[in-house]
């Protein structure tokens, strides 16, 4: 990321490699575009490609959050539960008992703020457990994943929630701005903002420093705990926002909303070059990872592959893309 603007003459060769690494997925994406076009002429239409982006927009926000958390050298598995819990909490607080709510009668407009606040709260609990109590991030956020999903299950008695009368919560996943789904704008805007933030701002850069060598970052005057805490909270809020978008997109929240998503979120981020060891990878790469996963699904659907062999083909494509990325950049991955 440090090599984003004007090239420096002496830097030429290395600069290229560094850039290549960030762009490692592009060849694979290109190949996919060609394959997709062969599979179906519809594939390359803007309508279809926008569909793909829309379908990936919620996962995209989770990936953005997870990528930030990974870059700062931590982990958060609980994002996948936050995705369902945050909007579900907002809904049970607002909805009457006849619609599976708690009947507390909170005004409808509070739904979106409550949803996002739930994100803040979960992020704060994670931060407390991981950073203050210094518990293992993997296992503690796995515990949080189970707990939060369980809370949702308990609060909703396992029911899925939906209501025609909650415009505030349904808006984002449904609205169309300038002819394109709002969720696509949100997805792109948040990624652009985040890319700029971690690329061009001191506080953004500190994520890489902390993830790369926490003791050194501390020695350099960075408030490592505070930054990591903020990142964990932001990631949870992003997941909550994604959950709100899902309500409008899919019309309801089921008790297992987001189940298994964290795998995909890690997959997209790592596919895009983000390292599980922290301090490495770019958000642009993570975004490519999300889009690539979406393209693969889209092509498989368009190609009407035998459903029994779908899984094997899906997996083979992912492995193939990695090998391709490895061959085109020549860099070991981690």
């Amino acid at each position, binding site marked *: 990321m440090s090599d984003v603007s004007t090239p*420096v003459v002496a830097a030429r060769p290395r600069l290229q490699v560094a850039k290549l690494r960030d762009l490692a997925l592009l060849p694979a994406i290109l190949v996919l575009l060609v394959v997709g076009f062969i599979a179906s002429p519809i594939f390359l239409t803007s309508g279809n490609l926008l569909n793909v982006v829309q379908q990936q927009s919620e996962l995209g926000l989770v990936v953005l959050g997870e990528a930030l958390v990974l870059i700062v050298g931590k982990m958060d598995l609980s994002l996948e539960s936050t995705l369902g819990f945050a909007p579900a909490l907002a809904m049970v607080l607002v909805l009457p008992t006849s619609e599976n709510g708690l009947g507390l009668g909170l005004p409808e407009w509070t739904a979106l703020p409550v949803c996002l606040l739930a994100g803040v709260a979960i992020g704060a609990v994670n931060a407390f457990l991981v950073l203050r109590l210094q518990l293992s991030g993997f296992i503690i956020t796995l515990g949080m994943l189970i707990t939060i999903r369980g809370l949702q299950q308990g609060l909703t008695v396992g029911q899925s929630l939906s209501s025609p009368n909650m415009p505030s919560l349904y808006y984002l996943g449904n609205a169309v701005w300038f002819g394109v789904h709002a969720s696509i704008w949100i997805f792109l805007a948040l990624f652009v903002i985040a890319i700029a933030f971690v690329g*061009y701002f001191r506080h953004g850069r500190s994520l890489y420093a902390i993830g790369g060598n926490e003791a050194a970052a501390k020695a350099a005057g960075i408030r490592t705990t505070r930054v990591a805490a903020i990142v964990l909270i932001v990631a949870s809020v992003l997941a909550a926002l994604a959950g709100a978008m899902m309500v409008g997109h899919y019309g309801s929240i089921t008790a297992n909303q987001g189940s298994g998503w964290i795998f995909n979120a890690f997959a997209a981020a790592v596919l895009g070059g983000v390292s599980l060891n922290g*301090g490495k990878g770019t958000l642009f790469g993570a975004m490519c990872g999300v889009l690539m996963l979406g393209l693969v699904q889209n092509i498989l659907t368009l190609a009407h592959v035998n459903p029994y062999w779908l899984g094997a083909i899906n997996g083979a494509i992912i492995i193939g893309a990695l090998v391709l990325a490895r061959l085109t950049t020549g860099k070991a991955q981690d």
Partner: protein
Amino acid sequence: MNAVEASNITKRFGQTVALNDVHITVADGETHALVGRNGAGKSTLVSMLTGLNRPDSGEITFRGEPAPALSDRQAWRTKVACVYQKSTIIPTLTVAENLFINRQNLDGGAVISWSRLRRKASDVLGEYGVDVDPNVEAATLTVEQRQLVEIARALSFGAKFIILDEPTAQLDGPAIERLFERMRSLRAAGVTFLFISHHLQEIFEICQTVTVFRDARHIVTSPVADLSKDQLVEAMTGEAVGLGAVASRPAVGSESVLDIRDLALGKHFSGIDLSVRRGEVVGIAGSASSGKVELGEVIVGLRKADAGTVAVSGKSLKPGSVPAALAGGVGFVPEDRHKEGFVPGLSIAENATFPIAGRLGRFGSISGRRRDQVAARMIDELAIKTSGPDQDVADLSGGNQQKVVMARALSSEPDLLVLMDPTAGVDVKSKENLLDAVDRAAAAGAAVLVISDELDDLRPCDRVLVMFHGSVAGEFPAGWTDNELVSVIEGIGESSGE
């Protein structure tokens, strides 16, 4: 006014008392040396003075004001800049960004201008004569380059008080000279230094005051001019000095142990021929760019040569294979102890006995008792300051970690010992122990290659080869003078004994 004053500082790590009620006062504008044996508590004090660690008790003031809160990192940065003993380079970032870490927005602007940052980085590196591309990932730097970047960063900061914890341990002569010039001019501009080094001549060269710690206690603080080197060593060790009494070795044998033919590696070196005989200690000197370290790494299998052969006791070694080298009777100390020297998280005993793990029990098993016996012997011989063979190497002081790496090299009683910068960060007295151990190995019939630009390391050698830009520029039998050797190392002199 005092730049810093620390009083009644005590710090424990579990059972270990790292600092026991020590005090230090560094007056404004002076260059103050802090010396003491490995594990005396110097680096621990540094971590207190830079706000990375809280003393269990005691008080620290900067220019009379109490030290900032531990969490207020930014405030600490305004008080003191530091080159830590342990690298604080962030390997995943570029050199340029490492130089300006957490101040990338150079003049407090909101947005970072990378082109400006790179230009400034080039300037800073140029100013300190550091020959690295600011755009490479710091992970690709050599130990020496990394150290230079850290120094350039600390000095460029504009701080009025700078701590340098063994900055010279990994530097070659000219680099040290440049550092000292820089320090002198900064001092002239009013900058205060706290300087830690095990090279005592450096203390006399640039420091005005010296403080000695021993066994976690403050021993003495005195103007440098009032102390002789022997007095200083005595304060450090608590014993009267008998330095330099090198035990004489039996005569060098006739059969050669190491035979190198026409060895070449990329831009690093080419056409190297060398034989080392039983009981012979050969030094290889040279500057950082001479290729001497790379030569050592090829011999032990850490790198693969482009051409040529390495044979030990008559058998060619498989190129680029450490296991093959070890099996062929090689033992070695790598240049970068953190990278290749030890496994943090494992005990001293385990780290020191890896090469002989197969001999510590039957059927591939390891007898913990025998391992600890071996380790205890090494701890004793090399004077490793530790709570015991079970201690995690990560918790040792820097110099003691280096001794563990040395212990690992010696453990297999190798036919050929290759030692790269073996005494980096090791205190004067312990250096003697290490060199004694080398002598004992040679006396027992090993061939030894000492790759170093540390004159103290080279002095006991039977002969010293000097490399310059990838080839052997001169050879000196024992008895050379510092000046003739240094001039060849720096490429400005003629070899005497060819």
